[in-house]
């Protein structure tokens, strides 16, 4: 637990516990993860990320660019990435929409980059300072065409720090863009952040060690040759379907093989990519699956529900995509129903339902009035549902 907060330590007064803003923690995580190129365009509620990067990157010799829009921002990040630089951008809904075409390019060209989307209420300008989780399916399917996606979701300030590191590492290892979702609550709140607090929010994953110094992670097997512009390889990079030489091909066999490989490199490494935490494993009659700020409420609801006689299991997902298929299906076999609180009209509930419906009932609990879902809200809904299923 040393390195994984060198930057935070530097600014702490009381080194055991510091009060940090989520967006700031994200930027500091990026610096610790080795991000040395940041391009962005201001938008609430993500702007603090770029402001911290503007201040901190020069000190480590990095490049910060405020671009003319979000399209230029993500494109500059991809350009830098193609030269071997570790790049990142941060935005919110409207800017995230503008980035979609280029995200597809980065997937196609296997160019790593991290895109942080601090979600606000939409569609369109919506309510800019109001939290939301309305971009979950856009993060999965925003760009056109069949494509894989790696999408993480942060639930607190510690997550903003460590999931940014995870996002950078995944991007480099899988040679593709990784999307980190936060919401306005997580981005703007300040909370005390210490190793003990972070330790309580355990990340379960195959072999991911957040305490490691940043090193260029080994690339996964299916990945095509990395393109480092400015090297002896002088490669060709294109958004056209291409073969292992990097040049376009119209060969149907090669086209299919290429697209399948793009997917396989993610799906085959689901074990490694799916970060989660289960509370009360096997002890609940019912379950709550949650992510982002709603996961905080779900965790708090666990105790409250127990006091009221409802044994509940909580599955806190840090990785939304690739879908944690096995984890959700195992849970579905154990419980009478799954409740999914989220700040949208049931986007992730739909994903969970199609995985779990053979074994259990999945109930969506969506909220879009701009307010949080509180632990009380969750417990009340659980009580209602328990009553309903018992009487039926």
């Amino acid at each position, binding site marked *: 637990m040393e390195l994984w907060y060198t930057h935070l330590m530097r600014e702490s007064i009381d080194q055991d516990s510091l009060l940090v803003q989520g967006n700031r923690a994200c930027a500091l995580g990026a610096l610790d993860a080795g991000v040395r*190129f940041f*391009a962005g365009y201001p938008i609430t509620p993500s702007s603090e990320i770029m402001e911290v990067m503007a201040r901190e990157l*020069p*000190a480590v*010799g990095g*490049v910060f*660019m405020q*671009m*003319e*829009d979000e*399209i*230029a*921002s993500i*494109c*500059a*990040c*991809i*350009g*830098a*990435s*193609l*030269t071997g*630089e570790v*790049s990142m951008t941060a935005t919110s809904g409207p800017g995230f929409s503008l980035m979609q*075409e*280029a995200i597809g*390019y980065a997937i196609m060209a296997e160019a790593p980059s991290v895109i942080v989307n601090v979600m606000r209420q939409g569609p369109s300008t919506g309510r800019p300072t109001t939290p939301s989780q309305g971009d979950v399916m856009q993060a999965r399917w925003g760009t056109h065409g069949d494509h894989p996606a790696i999408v993480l979701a942060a639930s607190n300030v510690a997550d903003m720090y460590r999931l940014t590191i995870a996002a950078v590492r995944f991007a480099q290892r899988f040679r593709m863009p990784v999307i980190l979702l936060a919401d306005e609550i997580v981005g703007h709140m300040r909370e005390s952040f210490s190793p003990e607090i972070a330790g309580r929010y355990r990340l379960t994953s195959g072999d991911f060690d957040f305490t490691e110094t940043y090193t260029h992670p080994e690339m996964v097997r299916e990945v095509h040759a990395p*393109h480092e*512009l*400015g*090297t*002896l390889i*002088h*490669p*060709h*990079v*294109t*958004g*056209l379907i291409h073969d292992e030489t990097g*040049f*376009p091909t119209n060969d149907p066999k090669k086209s299919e093989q290429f697209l399948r490989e793009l997917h396989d490199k993610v799906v085959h490494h689901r074990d490694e990519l799916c970060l989660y935490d289960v509370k009360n494993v096997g002890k609940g009659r019912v379950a709550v699956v949650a992510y982002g700020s709603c996961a905080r409420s779900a965790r708090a609801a666990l105790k409250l529900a127990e006091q009221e006689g409802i044994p509940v299991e909580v599955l806190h997902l840090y990785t939304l995509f690739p879908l944690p298929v096995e984890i959700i299906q195992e849970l579905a076999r154990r419980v009478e129903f799954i409740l999914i609180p989220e700040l949208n009209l049931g986007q992730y509930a739909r994903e969970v339902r199609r995985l779990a419906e053979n074994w259990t009932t999945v109930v969506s609990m969506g909220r879009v009035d701009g307010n949080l879902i509180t632990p009380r809200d969750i417990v009340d809904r659980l009580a209602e549902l328990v009553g309903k299923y018992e009487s039926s």
Partner: protein
Amino acid sequence: MAEREPNVAEEESTVAEPRTIDHYLHTDRFPHIWCPGCGLGTVTAAFLRAALELGLEKERTVVVGGIGCSSRAVGYLDFGTVHSIHGRALAFATGIKMAHPEFTVIVLTGDGDGAAIGGNHLIHACRRNLDITTILFNNNVYGMTGGQASPQTGMGGIATTAPFGFDEPSFDLCRLAEAAGATYVARGTSYGVRQLQRLIRDGITHPGFSFIEAVTQCPTEYGKRNPPKGPVQMLENLKEKAIPRKKAEGMTPEELEGRIVTGLLHRDESVPELTASYARMLERVRGSADE
């Protein structure tokens, strides 16, 4: 960030045999996609001859294209090449150049790619004065998508999306670039290939943002609908319309109507180049951090 060193060969005599532009071409990728009589290959060859003159190193040169017939040139070039997305070549190039100031970065773009969908990136790239050389292939049409109007089609021009004649005036792209802050601005044509080669060469060595408009012919999608028909006639038309800047200086706007003013149009060495100013800022910040 790495040190800035000019990417040019030190002694031309070290080259044993005179190289041809094949040195910079993936000839194994031929035949190319361009139509017979198209001017894009001529402009690309002018660029490659300029590269030969300078002895550009493949390893330190990155060429970025957008999307369009013109941008497809990057697929045949043996440099580090990026075939990016429509309109955004300059944004990609900005990331590449800022991350690696020691690279020579060239952008190949079309009139639709660079002046329509990518217009905002173009003016901001000019303003930043980042050391990138942009060659805009202006064929007055969207060639790749089949002859739709571009901002450069011109009043009265016929296009598939302007069947009764286009009603909109064009940009003067060179004046646009100059006003936006480009520090090297030039125009050539696919008829005047020697001049074009020289303009591109000087643009590459200019330490700042260079914009070169290469006026060229698309016989298939523009020439088919607008006089004069046929590639030879279109080239002759370019020859007749082109007028060197010096000569144009003494002429009235009426006399210049419909003419293509060629040559070096603007050059300013007094504006700081961005990677150089950024490096100085880094030094300042890091120097004060050490104190």
